């Protein structure tokens, strides 16, 4: 039974791995309601340091499409904050707080004014600061001259959780205009990313195609496209899940077959007696197959808890991928996954019981009875 439970646990884990990443990523993308993202041509959002010029012009072009409801331009940069005799570095997003989709406010308020900044808990911890404190924030570091393009005194107005933030990442957000001013000439009217919300009922793919036609220097990524690209990059884990899942199912099948076969061999005499008193072959087959199903089912129930524990452990390992958003889970429990694993095991149990059941039902009755008597 323990063997079947372990096979069931492995199977559940692999089903979770095969479907979890995609579902987790999809949930992350739709969490704020932005169906499209625009990145510099040929890149994924924040994959490179490239930026998109002409924010005002691009926004104007997009507003001409009645299917586009909201546009959120985002500018990314690095910041440096002196604390004592050291500098704390982090990433900053320049956003429009009224339409942003990058963070969730935990306490305080959005950076509505030009001298406001919101930070995540990790950065707060690094700075030893709290909401209401004043920081001297610099950006645009030039390693040649060891100077910054801009420095400002900003007030921490809120504590946030960055939806796409990775573990142990120091992050902050401020108004995009503030960041542009700090970065100076080379970053005026530029964005690292646009997030676009379409009108309810509008076809996001059609809007995506329209954008790419109208604005040739961007790559427009819909949720479906983004998921497909992530699928391609992480296809290895899906394939591994399929292979290990198949192996687990096969091993489980083998175990149940062995158990049922041994059980049938032990009870050859009893089965012969049952056949002798008139029990039909079909009834004998049915009983033995049900035995196999029962073993599989019991193993699956036992394996559910074990599977969830190992999935949590494996997810902890994979969550350490550098740059991976904290919200992404590789092993995501979905009831559908559990039902799929159970169904596969039940079918495997039926299959495992069929052969020994057929053998048992086909035993010559007289010979089996004689052998039992002699034994």
């Amino acid at each position: 039974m323990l063997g079947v439970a372990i096979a069931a646990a492995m199977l559940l884990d692999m089903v979770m791995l095969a479907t979890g990443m995609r579902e987790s990523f999809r949930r992350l993308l739709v969490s704020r309601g932005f169906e499209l993202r625009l990145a510099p041509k040929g890149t994924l959002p924040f994959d490179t340091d490239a930026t998109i010029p002409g924010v005002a012009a691009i926004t104007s072009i997009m507003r001409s499409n009645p299917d586009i409801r909201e546009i959120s331009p985002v500018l990314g940069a690095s910041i440096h904050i002196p604390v004592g005799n050291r500098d704390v570095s982090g990433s900053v997003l320049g956003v429009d707080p009224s339409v942003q989709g990058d963070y969730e406010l935990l306490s305080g308020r959005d950076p509505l004014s030009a001298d406001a900044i919101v930070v995540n808990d990790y950065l707060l911890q690094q700075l030893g600061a709290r909401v209401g404190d004043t920081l001297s924030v610099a950006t645009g570091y030039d390693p040649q001259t060891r100077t910054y393009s801009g420095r400002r005194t900003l007030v921490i107005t809120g504590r946030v959780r960055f939806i796409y933030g990775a573990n142990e990442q120091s992050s902050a957000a401020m108004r995009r205009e503030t960041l542009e001013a700090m970065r100076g000439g080379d970053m005026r009217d530029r964005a690292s990313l646009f997030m676009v919300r379409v009108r309810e009922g509008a076809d996001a793919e059609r809007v995506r195609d329209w954008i790419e036609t109208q604005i040739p220097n961007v790559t427009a990524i819909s949720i479906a496209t983004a998921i497909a690209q992530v699928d391609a990059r992480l296809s290895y884990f899906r394939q591994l899940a399929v292979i290990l899942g198949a192996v687990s199912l096969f091993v489980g099948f083998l175990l149940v077959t062995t158990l049922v076969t041994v059980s049938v061999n032990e009870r050859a005499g009893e089965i012969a007696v049952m056949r002798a008193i008139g029990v039909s072959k079909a009834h004998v087959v049915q009983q033995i197959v049900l035995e196999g199903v029962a073993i599989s089912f019991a193993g699956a129930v036992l394996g559910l808890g074990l599977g969830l524990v190992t999935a949590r452990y494996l997810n902890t390992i994979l969550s350490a991928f550098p740059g991976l958003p904290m919200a992404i889970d590789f092993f995501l429990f979905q009831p559908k996954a559990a039902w799929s694993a159970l169904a596969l095991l039940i079918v495997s149990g039926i299959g495992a019981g069929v052969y020994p059941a057929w053998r048992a039902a086909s035993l010559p009755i007289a010979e089996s009875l004689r052998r039992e008597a002699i034994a």
Partner: protein
Amino acid sequence: MLVFVLASSLLLQGTSPPPQAPPGRLRTIAIDEAFAARANLKPGDTVTVSSRADTVASARGAGGRAPGPDAERVIIGAIVRRGADPSEVARGDLRVRMHLDQLQHVSGYGDRVDRFAIATGPSTDIDGTIERINRPAFGFKAYRSRDIAVETSRTFQVVSRFHRAIGVITIVASSVFLLCIMVLKVEERRRDIAALRLMGISRSSVVRSIIIESALVAVLGSLLGVVLGWAASLLVNSHYQAVYSTPLEFSIVTTPVVAFAVSLSLLLGIGAGLLASLRLVRTPPLELFGR
């Protein structure tokens, strides 16, 4: 900016007038195999390179305007095969190699680079060299290549840990399966063992015979497993090298790996046999007969 540019920066212009010197004086670039296949390019083809997608797009448009000053017409001089770099797998980047000054001109980057790679002689004091560079360094820092590799290999460390965890789980699971099957198989022969015991065969002889049997099965199983593992490794490499267009070897079967697998298999096989047989010989023979 990297020495390499992204594919979107290339424009193939067969009909627009070249913005620069006549073809005879054009410089060459090299592209990788994936790029050549996707863009249907071959050595000798003339293309225009620009770092601005809008330059490319506008030149492609109805106006057919020539590319701007940040573009250069070049000839495909060579198609190169990429190295086995794990960090490039699954990224799908297309790569171009240009002369440094070419890229600096096209990108408008000026007299700048991302990094210098320094090769030293066999007897060079590396640490001393690094220290001498860093002392007067202004705006950059020198590192050993090995140290950078460690820092940038976190992704592969995570994958390694994951593989190790899967390996441990698989071994534990396999041990349990093996034990289950050994117990069942030995249980099947309990009447034979009971008969042997009643004939006077000692417990230790019975245990020894079962262990020898399980050891033999473990050896045969290990050999079959090694062959299967080697075949699976070939299949994995062939599949993923085709999928990611890389010469990288994803799976390598080495002597230490084989030795470890065979030793573990033997240990588990003998252990399972021992546990199963001990369980049986401790039961009185008549009880094994079911009396």
